[in-house]
């Protein structure tokens, strides 16, 4: 007898693990219209698959790889992004012409230079003695070296960037970027649920960031606060602000973020992207 509704995989896994009582298993079978024979067949197939997996990836080999991975201080994989998109209506875009849309000057507290430097020659963490202010810098990966990008420098889709910041002391804060379509990408912390702590000294984020095809600019923002930050709440505040502005096909500069909270300051670093004509 074939089932019309295969048993949910998670429930099957849990039955196989011995989590459920016979009564609970009967209830699951009833809910999902699974016969005893079909369940038994599914469990046997699962058991066979377990054996095949453990043969293909023996425990010693697998766990050794896990321990090795865990011991790496930083991973070079691309970060999982927390990326939010806004579906802007035509009306909202049209409203851009009259929207309150102030543009931030391309200022920075850094003195960027673009002499190519091997990125691997610098330690990831350097204590900055006497660093007076928050600093954000962007490196463009160009194997085997990386180039420090100037504020306002032009980049393009596909460029791989690495973010570096320097703080005179540890703070609460975030690093994010806003592109020309007002999409927000969270860079640090890695996940919105993680604690939003930015370490003292010069730090380079352990993952790269590849630019997509959003037009006009990518503005990186270092938000530094004296009090703890709820990442999700802060991102929502920025979203709300961006909703009051609109990406415009005629503009190439990002909006200037307002004071998000009394105890927070922002440093920005803006890269420009070649304008793309949109239909």
């Amino acid at each position, binding site marked *: 007898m074939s089932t019309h509704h295969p048993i*949910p995989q*998670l429930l099957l896994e849990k039955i196989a693990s011995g989590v459920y009582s016979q009564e609970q298993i009967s209830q699951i079978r009833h809910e999902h219209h699974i016969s005893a024979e079909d369940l038994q067949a599914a469990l046997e197939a699962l058991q066979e698959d377990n054996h095949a*997996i453990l043969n293909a*990836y023996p425990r010693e080999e697998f766990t050794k790889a*896990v*321990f090795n991975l865990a011991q790496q201080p930083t991973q070079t994989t691309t970060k999982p992004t927390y990326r939010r998109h806004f*579906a802007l209506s035509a009306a909202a875009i049209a409203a851009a012409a009259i929207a309150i849309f102030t543009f931030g000057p391309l200022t920075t507290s850094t003195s960027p230079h673009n002499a190519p430097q091997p990125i691997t020659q610098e330690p990831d963490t350097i204590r900055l003695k006497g660093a007076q202010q928050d600093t954000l810098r962007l490196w463009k990966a160009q194997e085997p070296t990386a180039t420090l990008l100037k504020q306002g420098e032009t980049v393009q889709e596909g460029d791989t960037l690495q973010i570096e910041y320097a703080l005179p002391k540890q703070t609460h804060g975030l690093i994010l970027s806003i592109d020309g379509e007002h999409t927000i990408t969270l860079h640090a912390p890695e996940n919105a649920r993680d604690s939003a702590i930015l370490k003292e000294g010069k730090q380079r984020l352990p993952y790269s960031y590849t630019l997509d095809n959003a037009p006009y600019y990518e503005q990186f923002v270092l938000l530094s606060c004296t009090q703890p930050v709820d990442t999700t709440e802060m991102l929502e505040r920025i979203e709300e602000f961006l909703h009051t502005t609109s990406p415009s096909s005629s503009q190439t500069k990002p909006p200037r973020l307002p004071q998000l909270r009394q105890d927070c300051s922002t440093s920005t670093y803006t890269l420009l992207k070649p304008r793309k004509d949109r239909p």
Partner: protein
Amino acid sequence: MNQAQLEQLYVDHGPMVIRRCRALLRHEQDALEASQEVFVKVLENAHTLDLNTSPSSLLYRIATNHCLNRIRAQKHRAKQETQQDILLLEIARHTEDDTVLVEKRSSLRHLFRRQQDSTRYIAILYWVEEMTLKEVADEVNMSVSGVRKRLRQLKEQIEPTVDNLREVEEH
């Protein structure tokens, strides 16, 4: 957690994690790497995770969220269509043919990105795995009404793009 404990956890639940990652990533090497990363997370957070009550549920959830994040990262990095598509496509796949789906990927992807991890997980358990509201609620430690509310809100957003999505149970 020492090596022996990790090995036992792998023997007991590793195949499930790998199977889960295979199902989501649809690429053997990616699935293996993601599975190892899942166990790294467990190793690093062993002191805060409750691995005694229901390790299957815990690892299944960590694996699902980790693979979804990996999919998002890869999509962002590559900016090209791959076989590793976003999970809402799995939801949609139950209701639509692939030709229609292609046209809807973009909006679904954007929509899915904006959901909380817990909402995505609820959606997957309900619409992809076809678990009941009660079963989903038990898995995510929420009330049935809470799960129903999340699903209804998400369904309202999805419906303009995906037709014939399974109705959210009334009771």
